[in-house]
């Protein structure tokens, strides 16, 4: 089993100049496989369709979290409605200012264990899959690997792919 056997082919991606409002709209309706169930992260590609970042749930939470709060313990003193205020302000931010720039990727012919290795070492739940020309051809989700290896454990993997 290799990365391209388990990945979901790339349907949607984000552009660096999209606003977060546009981005979250897409995240909420993006397809995973055949269903439009929404995803927790999407790759960001520039105009030449080159991968330049990832935008995931964590990045969106960080975009509403004021940077100064990470410097001191101020959580006890926050007020009701604070997160909502910051979310409204963050909606206008650009994807490129919020996304994670250092993206963990795997090659399409990477073994499943290599994919697991990358995910665990870098604590990411989804990785873009690149082909030989460094183009994003799909997304590999932790969930799909989980489904596959649990089937393996239950000895049901045979014939499923």
């Amino acid at each position, binding site marked *: 089993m290799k990365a391209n056997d388990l990945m979901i082919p790339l349907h949607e991606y984000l552009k660096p100049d999209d606003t977060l409002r546009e981005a979250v709209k897409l995240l909420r309706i993006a397809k995973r496989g055949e269903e439009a169930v929404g995803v927790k992260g999407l790759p960001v590609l520039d105009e030449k369709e080159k991968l330049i970042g990832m935008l995931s749930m964590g990045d969106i939470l960080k975009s509403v979290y*004021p*940077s*100064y*709060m990470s*410097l*001191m*313990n*101020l959580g*006890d*003193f926050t*007020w009701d409605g*604070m997160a909502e205020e910051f979310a409204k302000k963050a909606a206008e931010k650009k994807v490129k200012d919020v996304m994670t720039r250092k993206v963990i990727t795997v090659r399409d012919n990477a073994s499943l264990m290599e994919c697991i290795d990358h995910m665990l070492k870098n604590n990411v739940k989804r990785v873009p899959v690149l082909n030989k020309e460094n183009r994003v051809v799909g997304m590999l989700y932790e969930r799909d690997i989980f489904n596959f290896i649990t089937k393996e454990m239950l000895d049901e993997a045979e014939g499923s792919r």
Partner: protein
Amino acid sequence: MIHESTAVLQPFVADTSFWVATAIFVIAYGVIISEKLHKTVIAVFAASLMLVLKILEQHEAFHIEELGVDWNVIFLLISMMIIINLMKPTGIFEYIAIKSAKWGKGEPFRIMVVFSIVTAVLSALLDNITTVLLIVPVTIFIADALEVDPIPYLISCALASNIGGTATLIGDPPNIMIASKAHLNFMDFIYNLTPVVVVLMIVYILVIKLIWGKKLKTKEELKKRIMQMDEREAIKDPVMLKKSLVVLAVVFAGFVFHGALNFQPATIALFGAGLLLLLSKNHDLRYILAEIEWPTIFFFIGLFIIVGGVVKVGMIKWMSVQVINLTQGNLFATSMVVMWFSAFASAIIDNIPYVATMTPLIINMAEQMWPNLSGAQLLHHPDLMPLWWSLALGACLGGNGTAIGASANVIIVGISEKAGNRITFLKFMAYGMPVMIITVIVATLYVWLRYYVLGI
């Protein structure tokens, strides 16, 4: 080779090492001002050049106080940082900040005044960098709660920290360096600088009242956000807090008496750091030590070696001769030149490299004026003392002039930008430069009146 007593009379002969050391010094300071590279990287690299090119022997750079690293400064800074890092998780600083905002009763300008005073006092007792790192996050938080522009609060916080830091030996890096090189103790600073800083703070508050007194407004319901905060929730570890406060009390008592007890300030601070490390439990030592501002520490180390190089080749002595020629040995004039030149120089370059250069320069001047004296008799010559205080006042207060004048300003502008509030160079200067000029005028009057008119 130049001999001490003949330096003023004989024409100066510059050899190759003079030019090499001077070139390293000038280029390094130039790149530091240009901000093309991180200042610590430049300082460490230029320092290594001083050694590799044999301007300084490694032994001189590491072990000779006049030519190399001033470990008194380094260990004072490191030790105070360790104490603060151990205290931070107790929540005491959040407590102080929230309590201050409540003293301000949620009134935007009142809060600005209370924050300025608290920042000034903390800056006097801790170093400025630490203070602003503790105050700035809460300042932006409070401004967000009141839905007012945080930038006036941040600028006033930077300015207050530089004024407050001037008050004590440990308050501002220039003072730490001056104290170490001139062998001045904590109480010398309290007697000579604290009184004028109190006056300066009063003047400063009048200035900010003029600038922002009427401009800052908020809604009544937002004030409730502040008043509903319970500062007691901030205290996460009351046991450790008590230990920290005891150790801090010991450290400050130690500072007060270090001159009388014949200890260097670094010894007192190191004892405090060691004691608090011993008393604190369950801490992650690697984290506590990693949190020391290593870039700042290495900036100091690099600068000491760079300056050591130009001291050794006689460039600093040459400069001191020029200063003496300029003021014709008139010490009042020298003192005024030192104060005002320091103020503008510190506004343009970081006041740390500036003071690192000026302290040996003043000692060289003194050696030429009183060639028969040495040690404390020379460094504490009654006619020389106002020069040290002028240097301290000029360099510390000058830090307010621009956004890059003091480390505190640089940090505040950085944190503010990250939080989405950009403070431009000109915006900072529009407030900083007038405050610098007003405070230096007050300081000038003080030095003139106290040391040259009243002579006390």
